[in-house]
């Protein structure tokens, strides 16, 4: 029976349409922006000359840094949640049992980076995104180095 020739059909058992268009780079870029704005806020020095004009400039600069940090942290969280809920599947937990906790912590760190000006939490967010990067590309079966734009 086993020697009987047979025709082989390659059938698809693939996922929904968006399959294959994910990349943690989107979260990484947003996370880097959060970290960059956090550093800029912490490094911004109080104006040496106290005047209405200098204070307006100082507050304007600080406000812009804060606004960008806020926006990018929200964007980072959105990118992470899309990866978490859409790309990663139950079977990926077998190889990456810390997957859920890593994403949960990363999302919490996005929130922390929004409400704080914390260099420590900004770095922890980047570390979490790096872990997600490594899990993602491991699942895709490719070696993609962790490279930062900044």
């Amino acid at each position, binding site marked *: 029976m086993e020697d009987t020739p*047979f025709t082989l059909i390659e*059938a698809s058992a693939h996922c929904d349409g968006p399959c294959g268009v994910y990349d943690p780079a989107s979260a990484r870029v947003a996370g880097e922006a959060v970290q960059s704005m956090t550093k800029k806020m912490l490094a911004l020095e109080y104006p040496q000359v106290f005047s209405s004009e200098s204070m307006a400039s100082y507050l304007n600069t600080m406000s812009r840094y804060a606004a960008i940090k806020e926006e990018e942290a929200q964007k980072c969280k959105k990118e992470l949640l899309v990866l978490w809920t859409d790309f990663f599947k139950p079977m990926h937990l077998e190889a990456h049992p810390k997957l859920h906790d890593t994403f949960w912590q990363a999302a919490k760190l996005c929130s922390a980076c929004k409400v704080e000006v914390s260099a420590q939490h900004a770095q922890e967010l980047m570390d979490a995104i790096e872990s997600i990067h490594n899990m993602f590309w491991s699942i895709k079966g490719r070696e993609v180095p962790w490279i930062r734009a900044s």
Partner: protein
Amino acid sequence: MSRVRVHISGDSMWPTFPNGSLFELIDCTFEELNIGDVVLAQHPFHSEVQIVKRIESFRDRTVFLVGDNPDPLASEDSHNFGSINEEAILGRCELIQQ
């Protein structure tokens, strides 16, 4: 009549049938199909694609096919493309190896 084997690629039938599982295709009539059977079917929107899914239900002469993967985004099936006609069912799949 030569035998036909079906090799699947993808995770939509995980955890029952992981990527790379191999099946024997069993020729059968529509009346011989049952709810729960794993079948090879013609994709309704892509003529070059054949899919392996499980029969969830029958309605008139149409079949509602689903993947086994519990993730709602892990299977393109009747949740996406709707029920398919009986003519699109190409046979029942019996597992040879996972």
